[in-house]
């Protein structure tokens, strides 16, 4: 299975919080990164995660093992295909960056990411709640792929990505995966460039 994006082993790890502040300040001045043909962060709150290490937990809403592996998949591939790192915290704590929920979402919503805690830094979201609705994701075909695509999608929002941010394929597409191809479960090279420039 070929991962989309830069080789995570060939580049240094994240900048840390101070680095993010610098990058954010640069972006705020309109000096976009080389990868930035579009806006980044392009999620609707225009905020980055607080640093390159994405701590995460699965809340008590997860019961089924086949569901628990889905957020793990997304976190793993964020770590493997970008300069960000994933770090499981087991138990959710106040400082956890990404709290995953297994829930019944209404009105055809497959997954949701909400910035739930903001701190003193205007360009940063300190914590995101990420929710997956497996019943909605399992409508139609390619359920295994759909689950992982949406987990990748919502995690992407939490680190700053928008829908179709590159105009190309990747997990930031809305709705069902068009095929079982791995590209729909990964960030595009363009999106990886944004992430790596910011973290």
């Amino acid at each position, binding site marked *: 299975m070929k991962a989309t994006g830069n080789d995570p082993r060939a580049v240094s790890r994240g900048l840390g919080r101070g680095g993010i502040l610098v990058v954010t300040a640069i972006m705020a001045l309109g000096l976009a990164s080389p990868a930035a043909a579009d806006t980044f962060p392009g*999620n*609707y*709150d*225009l*905020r980055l995660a607080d640093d390159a290490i994405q701590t995460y937990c699965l*809340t*008590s*809403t997860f019961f089924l093992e086949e569901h628990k592996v889905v957020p793990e998949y997304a976190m793993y591939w964020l770590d493997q295909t970008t300069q960000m790192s994933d770090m499981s915290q087991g138990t*959710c704590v106040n400082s956890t960056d990404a*709290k995953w*929920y*297994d*829930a*019944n*979402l*209404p*009105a*055809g*919503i*497959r*997954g*949701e*990411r*909400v*910035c*739930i*805690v*903001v701190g003193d830094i205007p360009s940063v*979201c300190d914590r995101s*709640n990420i*929710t997956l609705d497996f019943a*909605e994701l399992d*409508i139609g075909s390619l359920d295994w792929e759909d689950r992982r695509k*949406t987990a990748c*999608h*919502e995690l992407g*929002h939490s680190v700053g990505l*928008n*829908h*179709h941010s590159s105009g190309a394929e990747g997990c930031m597409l*809305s*709705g*069902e995966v068009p095929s079982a191809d791995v590209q729909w479960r990964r960030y595009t090279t363009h999106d990886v460039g944004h992430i790596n420039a910011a973290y």
Partner: protein
Amino acid sequence: MLTFVAASLLVGYVVGGCGGGSGTSNLNSDNLDDFVAEIRRGADVDYTPIKDAADAVERADVIVVGTLTNVRDGIAIHGEDGLWNEMLTLEVSVEDVVIGRALAPTDPIVVQVFSSAVVDVEALRASLPKERVILLLDEITDWSPFAGARFTYPDGIDGETRLFTPFSDGVVFDGTEGPVNMLVDPADLADGWAGDSTFEVLIDRLVAATHPN
């Protein structure tokens, strides 16, 4: 504050009748742009897109046309792991009901929409758009996101209130240059839905879809 945007359509019901134009002028788009930009902040969803008017009628419990009259705090939902989401309340004066007439005209309609800690309710209130809006709604009166979810209600809403939530691509304003979707970008709309028509044509399509041949 945290907002898991809710729209509470506390209905100022005007008239039944489907699909007619009101003659409302398409002004105030500065407000509409500001409102849309603010209400989206911090909540991003992946959703099953509405394919076309027929799909909208098939999936929605209620479709109404109206105008927003107020925005305020909404419902908060907690679980064992803390706060899951909060909501905003939008109050809407309903002009037409395309489907869902089983809702009595005097019934309040309360709609929940996802939002975030980033949204400024005062900014939303200051930019409340005057444009007419189509809302495709899913009833969530008995809905609970997960076992053990606890609901905290704002003034005027309680456990007896009938609750609705809009489809992500199902809140469409009558913008100056065409329909404006409140929660998603035009590029995310299905080709057959809301992207290639005027507001009035969209209503006509929805009405027509309620009476398939």
